[in-house]
C-alpha cells in the first residue's frame, strides 16, 4: 500500500495534530473499520518508555472512531500534563492506523482526566512483569519482585513524571512505582 506521510515531525504540544494520509491515487476502502478493529490495532502501539504495555492497557485512548467524512479520529489522554512522550505516542498511533488506508487525525484532550485506575488489569500485570509496581497509594505499594509489603518510599518523584522511587527491605531491590493519581 502506497503511503505518504504528511507531517514528518510531531507537533510540539497538546492541541496540535498528527495527520497521516494516503497518496491521492489510492481511494479509501469502502467499508470503514469498526471501533473494535481500531482498538485491536491501537493495542499494538506500545508505550515508548515501557514497551511491554500498550497504550490501550495504559488507558490513554479516550476515543477512536471513523468520522462522517471518512477519516479516523483518535483522542488521547496524557498521563501527565507535561508528559514528553505524548508526541512520540501520537506519531506512532498515526503510523499504525494509516494502514487502514484513510486519513488519520490524532489529538490530545483533557476532556476527562487520565487517572491511574484507567490502567487495565492486564496492564497492571505487564507493569509488574516489567519490574514496576502498578499504581497504588504509597502505603499500599508492594514490591514487584517479591510481593513484600515491607517497602519504603525513597522519593515521591522518580525518573519520569508518573513514577516514584521505592526500596524493598525484604529482597533489597530498589524499584519504581507508578503514582496513584
Amino acid at each position, binding site marked *: 500500500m502506497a503511503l505518504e506521510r504528511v507531517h514528518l515531525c510531531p507537533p510540539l*504540544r497538546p492541541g496540535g495534530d498528527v495527520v497521516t494520509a494516503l497518496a491521492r491515487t489510492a481511494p479509501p476502502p469502502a467499508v470503514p473499520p469498526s471501533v473494535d478493529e481500531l482498538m485491536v490495532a491501537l493495542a499494538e502501539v506500545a508505550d515508548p518508555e515501557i514497551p511491554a504495555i500498550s497504550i490501550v492497557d495504559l488507558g490513554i485512548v479516550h476515543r477512536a472512531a471513523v468520522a462522517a467524512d471518512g477519516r479516523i479520529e483518535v*483522542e488521547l489522554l496524557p498521563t501527565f*500534563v*507535561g508528559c514528553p512522550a505524548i508526541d512520540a505516542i501520537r506519531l506512532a498511533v498515526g503510523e499504525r492506523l494509516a494502514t487502514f488506508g484513510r486519513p488519520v487525525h490524532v489529538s490530545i484532550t483533557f476532556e476527562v482526566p487520565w487517572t491511574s485506575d484507567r490502567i487495565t488489569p492486564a496492564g497492571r500485570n505487564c507493569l509488574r512483569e516489567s519490574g514496576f509496581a502498578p499504581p497504588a497509594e504509597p502505603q499500599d505499594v508492594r514490591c514487584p519482585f517479591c510481593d513484600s509489603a515491607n517497602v519504603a518510599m525513597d*522519593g*515521591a*518523584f522518580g525518573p519520569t513524571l508518573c513514577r516514584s522511587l521505592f526500596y524493598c527491605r525484604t529482597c533489597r531491590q530498589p524499584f519504581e512505582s507508578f503514582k496513584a493519581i
Partner: protein
Amino acid sequence: MTTIRATLAAGLDPSTRAALDELLLSMADDEFVIGFSDSEWTGIAPLLEEDVAMSSLAQDELGHAAALYTLLAEVRADGRDADAIAYDRQPDEYRHARLLDHGRGDWAMTIARRYLYDTADGARLEGLVASSFSPLRELVDKIRREERYHVMHATTWLERLAARDGEPRERLLAALEELAPDAATVFAPLAGGERLVESGVLSESMAGLEARWRATITPLFVHLGLPMPQVAVHPDRGRTDHREPFRWLWNEFTSVRRSDPVATW
C-alpha cells in the same frame, strides 16, 4: 477539541474574556517562572533524590504552563502561539506573583517558596474546579491530581527544616522573613476580577481564596511555631515591578529564543 474551544471563548462577552485573559496569563506565568526556578537545582540539589524531585517538579510546572499558554493562545486567537506568549515579552510584561521573584536562594528559600506557592496555587485551583469555562475546568481537574504530590513534597521538607534547631530552622526563618511581604501575592487582585466571579469562571474573589489559603496553612504554621505570612504590602503591585533576580532568570530562559526566534526543536 481545538475548534470547540475557540467557539467557547468567542461566546464570552468582552469584559469576561479580558478578565479570563488576565487569569490565564497570571497562572501560566506563575507556573512558568517557578518551573524555571526549580530547574536551576538540576544537577546541584543537596541530595540525589531531591535532584530528581526538583527536576520532576520543574517538568510538571512547565507542562502546566505550556497547557495554560496554549489555552490562552486559543482564547486570544490572534495567531500568536504558546511559545510566543511564553518567550516574546519583556521582563516587565510578565504577570507572575512577586513571591516568585526572589531568586533561587538556598534550599530553605526554595522549600519556603515552594510551600507558600503550592498551597496558594492549591487554593486558586480549588476555586476553578467548578469553573463555567470548561476547557480550564478540565485542565484544572488534571493539574490538581499532580499538584497533590507537590504539596506533599513541600510539606515534608518544611516540617523537616522547622523541626531541626540550629542552621536548618534559622535558614528557614530567614527565608520566610524575606518572602513575607510577597507571600500572598498569588492572590493579588486581577483587572476585571469581579467579572470572573460573576460569570462563574472563578468561584470567589481572590480575597476569598486568600482567606481559605490562610485557614489551610495556619494549623501547620502554628504547630511548627512559624510566623504566618503577612498581608501583601502592595497588593496592586503583586504581579508587576519584578525584582532583579527575575530579570536575570528572564535573560536565561529567553536566551535560546532570542538567539534564533524562528528555530524549531
